[in-house]
């Protein structure tokens, strides 16, 4: 699915742990316009659950959660309109 959407911004937060994974995700989301898409790359396993949950909690749409070729988590999220 991530191949089909247009990514407006990418955020690499490998090495970050909760809650900073979401803090940095939130700051990146604030720089986007409504409807734009952010790709987040992270390697802290609990964040693969927490970040999508928190994003949904703020009304954004999580389009995809998957692992990439480096075994990192990739979250694709669209900013709420």
């Amino acid at each position: 699915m991530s191949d089909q959407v247009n990514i407006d911004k990418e955020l690499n937060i490998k090495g970050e742990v909760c809650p900073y994974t979401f803090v940095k995700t939130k700051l990146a989301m604030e720089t986007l316009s409504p409807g734009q898409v952010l790709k987040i790359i992270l390697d802290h396993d609990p964040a693969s659950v927490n970040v999508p949950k928190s994003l949904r909690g703020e009304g954004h749409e999580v389009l995809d959660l998957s692992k990439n070729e480096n075994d990192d988590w990739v979250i694709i999220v669209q900013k709420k309109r």
Partner: protein
Amino acid sequence: MFEFTEDHIKRYSRHILLPEVGGIGQKKIYDAKVLLVGAGGIGAPVAYYLAAAGVGTIGIIDEDTVELSNLQRQIIHSMDDLGKEKAISAKETIEKLNTDVTVVTHLERASSANIMDIISKYDIVVDGSDNFPTRYLINDACILSNKPLSSGAVFRFNGQVMTIVPHEGPCYRCLYREPPPPDMTASCQEAGVLGVLPGTIGLLQATEVLKLIIGQGDLLCGRMLNYEALEMDFRKIKVNRNPSCAVCGDNPTITELDDYEAFCQMKF
């Protein structure tokens, strides 16, 4: 424009996580300029917490020096500060807590001669003064300069908080037209105050200040919060704007500031 460093992200993370604040709200907090009238019982916790919250500019008006009897409640001062100007002592404490904050000291008593000029440099005013002449002066100055004011007062076990948004809600004068005559009020030296009380009231005021800055929630505008510590009772009293108020009414008679007779210099 303020850009977040890694340290800022960590320091303010618990704010940024709040949907109502976020990075956008935290930047508003950094850009805010808040004036505290008094660095005493109320001003001390307000200054300390607003500094921790990251308010970028905090002005403090106070001409008094730190005394041992202040330390029962004025938590921004300590033993090492005895004899030091309260505004300077507060500035030094804040600088140890958060170097993002610029503290501006005004080592003078608020008066009709200086207050309009001082207020013009700030966005929001917090009244933590201990006497009626200053309370009315600050109220009138905020109405005349159209600046929101958090008004707080403490007495023994009782405290009150009200947020005054000029011309949107009532002001202090809508509630009480004139200061009480000097001989009607209890002697300040003899009244006493529970040490934690100005902390409770000051933090309610600091909360209102942060809400004003981020533009969230319902303010104590048109509502006075009354707190009775002994009963642990919080009660909100509806207060209406008085259309014939001398300063914020439809035909105001107070168009410039006046100094009332000072009748008590003791700091709470």
